[in-house]
Each structure stands twice: as structure tokens, then as C-alpha cells.
């Protein structure tokens, strides 16, 4: 490894703007409110977006609210969907009389063929029927507009549906000649019993340019930003449930975070870094998760390149807009609806213009009063979710506005912690870096990415 090279390779720079303001809880105080407030805000905001779309979709059909639908008369209704699910776990099941009827194994997917959809707005709710709308494709909390009429049996027969669709997108900046990369990684799971510390070291060495020949260092110098999308530590659950902790246990709880701090210090010394909380991290449970406290990272937080960010996280680098979460929203969609793969769920959230429609129904969420921060106001250029089983990506092209957005989800897991995702800022090129690729010229063949 060449250490004293006369010509240094400078790291590329890029401008960064944080767009996290809606996700940070600032002045909200809890006044005893319930979740009806956030549903009201969601319905108002999305209905205002849908109104002009509806008039151009079906110009001659009247719009009415749920109480205004009449038998045999075709109309359009805009409201929030509620999916009644038979297998959805409920806190009241503990108190039900037929305890023997509940299954002992907890299913991972709660769908049942008897699930049905209900449309709700301020005036009332109506059961939805007809074969156009498949309950398996929708979840509670999505705002849609429906064309149909009331059937004799009293339910609303749906003939067509209009979703909010992809939001508009700002122009992608013109392609500059330079190559710049953003690295996204998730699921480091520091502290996991099967993790190999050398793998983290390999990641750090590669990103900071201590690895490989001139060509590899040149590539590392093109990395302008690193985003860690959740699940950075894994604290043994057995320790957390104990009432009284022995002093050895206390230090065992702190060990993973200290190790992560050391890793992040080395990275933060070299390039700007964002860290987001995930489902397993020491942060709050409900979305939006607050940024990890700076006191957890005493040495890396001293760098101004270290940025602790909330989950969901939105930012802009050189004009390219990124939006993503640590995966809780899509994982929840997978439990309560059907789709081909995670990318399809991600596409649906973009088309519904809402990051986490199942919040607060099945996904924990703060009871906002006057706004719903999960609304996607403008379409991101890159939409990511972390902590998934495998890596995949898809380009979604919009309709009239002519834009494209690349969604992808990254692999997580202790099995492949070095799977980092490189996003090329100028073009749509991307590639997956594994620690294997970084091993040329070095006798480290024994380090396998299992």
C-alpha cells in the first residue's frame, strides 16, 4: 500500500441541504389529542390535491361526500380507506371470551380473503364492494377518490379509482462532467455476536481511501457522502429486559455503541456522514424517529461532518433530492397488503403520495395535530429504504410531467454488512460495492462476504 504518495487525490465536494424540517418534532406538545387529528389533516391535504385531478379525470360526474351517495346515481367520493382485517392483532384479543380460538403462532402476514375495504370521510363511512378494488392491494390510511354508485345492498359499488399519483419533481440538475458518488448503507448491526470487526474496518478503509491502488483510491475520492440508514447497533435483547443490571451487563450494553462511535469517527474524519435511527437502534419507537442523540457518539459528534438525522430522512446533494427511511414503513405494508416485491410497495407509496399510510393504524406514529409530515410533497430523485433482505432497484417514470425516480432497497443483515450502495449523482448509474471488490492486491482472501 503506497503511503507517502507525492500526488494526493483530493476528495470531491458536493453541496448538501437537509430537508428534514417536517420530520423533526420541534414545538409539538402532547395535549391529550388522539389520532383523529392526523387523519383529518391527511384527508384535507390529499383531498385538496385530488380535487383538480378528479375534475380532469371525470369531468361530468358530481363529487359528493359519503353521506351524499344515492342509490343508482353515479358519483365520485374522496375519502380515506380503512381495511377491516380479520387477522389483525388487537389489544382486545386478550380479553375476548373465546381465547381458545386465537391461533398460537403469530402470522407474519395478516391478510385474509374476507378482508374488506371501507371508505371514510368526515360525514360517514361506507363499505366498498365490487370487484374493481382488491383489498389485498390497499391498506388503511390511503386517500383515494372512487367512482361508483350505491348498490341495493347498501354498499358502494366501485367502478374506478383514482390515486393521487406521483407528485411533481424538480428538474434534475444538468449532468456535470465530474463523477460523484453517494454511498448508502444499512444494517451494520455492530454488536451482533456473529459480526466480524474486520469487515467494518474494510468498509472504513475503502471509504476513506486507505485501501487499494491509485485507481481504487481515486474511486474512493469520488465518494462525497455516506448515509447510514438504520440498525447500526444490535444490543442483546436479553439484557434490555432485565430488571437489575450487573455492572458487567451495563458495560455490555454500551459496548456496541462505543464500537460504532469508533468506526464513525474514522469515517467522519474523511467525509460527511448522515446516520439515521432504525428499528433496533436506541431511539424512540414511533415515527418520525428522532435523530440519535449526539451524546451516544462522543468522539464522532465533535466533527462537523457528522450529522445525526431523523427517520425518515430527506436531503439534497448537488440538486439531487433523496428521500428514504430505515424500512419500517415498507415492512409494515408488506404485513398488511400483497405485492410482488418491496419495490412494488415503494412504488405504491409514491403513487399514494404518502410515505407511511399505515401510520398510525399499525405503525407507531406521533399524534400530530395540524399536519401530516409523511406526505410526499415533491417526488424525490432517489427513494431508498434500508434494512431489507436483498438489494434491488427500479426506475419509475412519471406520466405527463416526464420525470423519473429511482427507488431501491438495500440489503441489510449481519450476513452481508459490507453491502453498500453507490449512487452516481450525475447519471442514473449505480452499482453495488462488496468488500470482495475492494480486495484486489491484498492478501485478504480469507475475509468472505458470506
Amino acid at each position, binding site marked *: 500500500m503506497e503511503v507517502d504518495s507525492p500526488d494526493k487525490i483530493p476528495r470531491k465536494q458536493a453541496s448538501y441541504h437537509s430537508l428534514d424540517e417536517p420530520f423533526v418534532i420541534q414545538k409539538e406538545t402532547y*395535549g*391529550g*389529542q*388522539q389520532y*383523529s*387529528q392526523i387523519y*383529518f*389533516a391527511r384527508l*384535507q*391535504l390529499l383531498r*385538496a390535491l385530488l380535487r383538480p385531478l378528479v375534475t380532469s379525470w371525470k369531468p361530468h360526474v358530481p363529487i359528493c361526500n359519503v353521506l351524499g351517495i344515492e342509490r343508482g346515481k353515479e358519483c365520485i367520493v374522496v375519502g380515506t380507506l380503512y381495511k377491516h382485517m380479520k387477522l389483525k392483532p388487537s389489544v382486545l384479543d386478550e380479553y375476548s371470551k373465546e381465547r381458545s380460538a386465537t391461533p398460537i403462532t403469530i402470522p407474519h402476514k395478516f391478510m385474509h380473503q374476507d378482508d374488506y375495504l371501507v371508505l371514510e370521510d*368526515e*360525514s360517514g363511512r361506507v363499505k366498498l364492494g365490487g370487484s374493481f378494488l382488491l383489498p389485498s392491494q390497499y391498506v388503511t390510511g390511503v386517500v383515494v377518490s372512487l367512482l361508483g354508485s350505491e348498490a341495493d345492498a347498501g354498499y358502494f359499488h366501485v367502478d374506478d379509482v383514482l390515486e393521487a399519483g406521483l407528485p411533481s419533481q424538480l428538474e434534475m440538475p444538468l449532468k456535470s462532467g465530474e463523477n460523484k458518488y453517494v454511498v448508502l448503507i444499512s444494517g451494520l448491526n455492530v454488536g451482533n455476536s456473529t459480526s466480524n470487526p474486520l469487515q467494518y474496518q474494510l468498509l472504513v478503509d475503502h471509504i476513506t481511501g486507505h485501501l487499494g491502488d491509485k485507481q481504487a483510491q481515486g474511486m474512493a475520492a469520488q465518494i462525497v457522502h455516506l448515509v447510514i440508514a438504520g440498525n447500526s447497533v444490535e444490543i442483546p435483547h436479553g439484557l434490555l429486559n432485565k430488571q437489575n443490571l450487573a455492572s458487567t451487563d451495563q458495560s455490555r450494553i454500551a459496548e456496541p455503541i462505543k464500537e460504532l462511535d469508533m468506526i464513525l469517527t474514522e469515517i467522519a474524519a474523511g467525509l460527511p456522514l448522515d446516520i439515521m435511527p432504525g428499528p433496533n437502534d436506541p431511539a424512540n419507537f414511533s415515527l418520525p424517529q428522532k435523530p440519535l442523540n449526539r451524546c451516544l457518539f462522543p468522539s464522532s459528534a465533535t466533527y462537523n461532518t457528522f450529522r445525526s438525522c431523523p427517520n425518515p430522512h430527506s436531503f439534497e446533494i448537488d440538486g439531487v433530492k433523496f428521500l428514504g427511511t430505515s424500512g419500517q414503513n415498507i415492512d409494515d405494508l408488506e404485513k398488511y397488503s400483497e405485492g410482488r416485491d418491496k419495490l412494488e410497495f415503494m412504488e405504491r407509496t409514491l403513487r399514494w403520495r404518502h410515505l407511511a399510510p399505515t401510520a398510525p393504524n399499525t405503525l407507531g406514529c406521533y*399524534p400530530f*395535530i*395540524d*399536519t401530516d409530515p409523511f406526505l410526499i410533497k415533491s417526488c424525490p430523485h432517489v427513494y431508498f429504504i434500508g434494512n431489507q433482505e436483498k438489494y434491488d432497484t427500479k426506475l419509475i417514470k412519471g406520466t405527463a410531467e416526464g420525470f423519473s425516480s429511482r427507488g431501491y432497497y438495500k440489503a441489510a443483515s449481519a450476513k452481508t454488512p459490507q453491502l453498500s450502495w453507490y449512487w452516481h449523482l450525475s447519471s442514473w448509474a449505480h452499482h453495488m460495492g462488496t468488500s470482495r471488490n475492494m480486495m484486489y492486491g491484498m492478501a485478504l482472501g480469507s475475509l468472505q462476504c458470506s
Partner: protein
Amino acid sequence: MLPDVRDRLPGMAPKSASMKGFYRQKKSTKSTASKNVSTKKSPNLPMPYDSDITQPAALISHGSLDLKDSYKEDEQILGRFDMNMAYGPCLGMSRQARWERALKLGLNPPEEIESILKRGKVGSVCLWEGRV
């Protein structure tokens, strides 16, 4: 004639040696004043529309009947604002916050509501707050 202390104190043996006398309960004979219904209500809560009995005595004794009328009217207007479902649920937030939210969401709430709220002397939350 002073009552015998042995009849009053619970543990002591009564004058009469029988057990019936030991357990005999005596009713307290204090005269009870007629209880005023309104003492439980705090003056900050908005009053129901048509009741007069809940007015604190001080207000009536000073004879400021005009104040009472406009207070009732304002409360009626605010009550209608609370119940209007176009502005969303009223529980869990102050009336001012609900008005501001309606403004922010483009629902055009009437400005007179805000002026009534600014004037003060009305409840800051809806009638059912804390009771439902």
C-alpha cells in the same frame, strides 16, 4: 344535659351492658345547609346555553347582566364552531389551535371566531375537553 361520652367513643363499654347498645349507631344531628350545585364547577369552563343556576353569586350581585349575555352569545358561536365537522375533531386541541389549523388547511374559518377568542373571557377548549 351533656351526652355521655361512653356512648360516643367507639371502644368504650356503654352505660347499658347489652351488646345492642354497644353497636347502636347514632345519627349526627348537624343541620345541613342546602347544597349549591354550582360549587363544583370551575368558573373557567364554558356554561351550558340556557342555565342560570350556575352563575357565580358575585356576578349576579354586581348586576352585570350585559356581560352575561354577550358571554353566552360568544360561547354559542364558539360551540357551533366546535361542532362544525368541516374543521375536524375538536377534542385534544385548543380552539385557537383548531382555528389556526383550519386557516392553514385553506378551510376559510370565519374571522369573527378568532376575534372572539382574542377577546378572552371564553373557554379556550371545547365543552367536552377532559370530560370525554
